[in-house]
């Protein structure tokens, strides 16, 4: 049995590459936030407590249009609705009787990336792991935002460009190993790539925000595979994570 402390340290370790990727992305978020009138301190605070890339970007942009709080709340609900799907996927892997506190803590750690590594880790999701990753990664997200606001173009564009794929690299490390092991997952990933590409081009659906396209495609494709390639019950917990194993 691993101690909570060592699980926490694992989370911190896996949070480092996420934090580095965040730093680069947050830097460009900061450059945008400055244009919308946010100070470095305000950017730092909002990144520390919100830690949601697309959501913050849209939130900053909306602020510049003198939007009301109601508009802001509706926008946040829509753009971050994918977190609901992720939350359900994580809670599905927690046994009955898991304390509400544990569920809330794991849920509170959800970002695209931390969800990815939490779900890839075999076994029941634990706040020690997700929390370790969150505590490591989010300060770098906030620092990147503040630096982006205060000194916009200090990093050469070439470096920013290279760093910007770090997060996608981590996504690949999460989805490809299970795709290799389970043909249905592999097919689902391939179909997702194709549909996602098509969705950016097709009229109507391409008009949706990226967050909404993600939700729509996730629901459609996951439903399709749930219908065509259903899982036998109780076999899905702890599946699919050699990417993250020691």
């Amino acid at each position, binding site marked *: 049995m691993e101690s909570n402390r060592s699980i926490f340290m694992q989370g911190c370790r896996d949070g480092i590459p996420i934090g580095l990727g965040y730093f680069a992305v947050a830097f460009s978020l900061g450059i945008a936030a400055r244009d919308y009138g946010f100070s470095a301190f305000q950017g730092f605070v909002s990144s520390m407590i919100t830690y949601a890339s697309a959501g913050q970007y849209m939130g900053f942009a909306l602020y510049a249009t003198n939007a009301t709080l109601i508009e802001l709340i509706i926008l946040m609900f829509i753009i971050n609705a994918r977190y609901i799907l992720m939350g359900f996927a994580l809670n599905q892997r927690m046994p009955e009787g898991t304390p*509400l506190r544990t569920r809330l803590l794991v849920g509170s750690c959800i970002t*695209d990336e931390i969800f990815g590594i939490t779900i890839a880790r075999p076994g029941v999701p634990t706040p020690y792991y997700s929390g370790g990753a969150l505590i490591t990664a989010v300060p770098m997200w906030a620092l990147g935002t503040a630096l982006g606001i205060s000194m916009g173009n200090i990093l050469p564009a070439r470096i920013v460009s*290279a760093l910007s794929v*770090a997060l996608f690299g*981590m996504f690949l490390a*999460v989805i490809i*190993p299970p795709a290799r092991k389970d043909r249905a997952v592999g097919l689902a990933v391939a179909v997702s790539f194709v549909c996602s590409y098509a969705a950016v081009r097709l009229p109507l659906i391409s008009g949706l925000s990226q967050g909404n396209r993600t939700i729509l495609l996730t629901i459609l494709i996951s439903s399709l595979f749930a219908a065509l390639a259903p899982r036998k019950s109780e076999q899905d917990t702890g599946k*699919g994570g050699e990417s993250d194993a020691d």
Partner: protein
Amino acid sequence: MQTNVYVYIAVMAFATWLMRVVPSLVMKRPISNQFFQSFLYYVPYVTLAVMTFPAIVEATQSPVAGAAALIAGIIAAWLGAGLLPVAVICCLTVFILELFVH
């Protein structure tokens, strides 16, 4: 009238946090419905795949470098590389290719 910026930031953070914890508040046990179970099994892979492509190609200065990073990342992950190695391989692929493209 413009809302106080700190109130605005606090509301943004709270609304985002609510989205994260709604399932934790309503779910008391794993859902046994087979369709829903299967649906949730596929959700992570589909979501992350949708978010990766074509975004990775659009993130870089040169789309060719982004596409190469995608292929390099898939190969590295297929061969069993972990989170950090795959991320570094993708970054290096872009960095090296963009030295030539620009």
